[in-house]
């Protein structure tokens, strides 16, 4: 004989699980939504945002402006780019994973004096005359 309290508990548990599933529907609609939700909810995102707020240096601003992903999120970002590419949407993958000529305009606007395009290491570095440089690598191994 099943007690009424057990049945009620089971029903409540089922309703809670259903509510959680409904809340997650959008994230599991397709690969793009899943990857976007992954980037939003990854614990590393919060830490990197706080660090960026604390770091108001020149390089911090450039990072925040154009490389708004953390190294720990590269895989998740890659999944998002791959899902977008499968849908024929390449608009973000170029900015994220390859050198873009617009970077030079950003470097100049941020007060950098010159840039070094290192083809041996596939890196692009923004520099000041007194040799403080910030660099990014092509593909998924930037910074």
């Amino acid at each position, binding site marked *: 004989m099943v007690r009424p309290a057990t049945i009620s508990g089971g029903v409540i548990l089922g309703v809670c699980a259903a509510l959680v599933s409904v809340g997650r529907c959008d994230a599991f609609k397709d690969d793009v939504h899943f990857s976007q939700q992954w980037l939003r909810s990854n614990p590393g995102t919060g830490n990197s945002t706080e660090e960026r707020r604390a770091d108001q240096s020149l390089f911090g601003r450039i990072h925040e402006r154009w490389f708004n992903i953390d190294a720990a999120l590269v895989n998740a970002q890659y999944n998002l780019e791959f899902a977008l590419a499968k849908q024929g949407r390449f608009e973000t993958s170029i900015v994220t994973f390859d050198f873009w000529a617009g970077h030079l305009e950003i470097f100049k606007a941020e007060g950098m004096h010159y840039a070094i*395009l*290192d083809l*041996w290491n596939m890196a692009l570095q923004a520099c000041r005359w007194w040799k403080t440089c910030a660099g990014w690598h092509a593909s998924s191994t930037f910074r």
Partner: protein
Amino acid sequence: MVEDLRRVARLIDFPLIIRPESSVYHLVRKYIDMTAAGLMIPWTER
């Protein structure tokens, strides 16, 4: 990619220094022809 970067660098008057993949003649000459602001020749240390 290199040509695009170099062209934009010239347009906005922003020096772009290129470090070639190697210190071989045809690569260095190509980047000189692109009118790079400067070259960093690799593998010259002794």
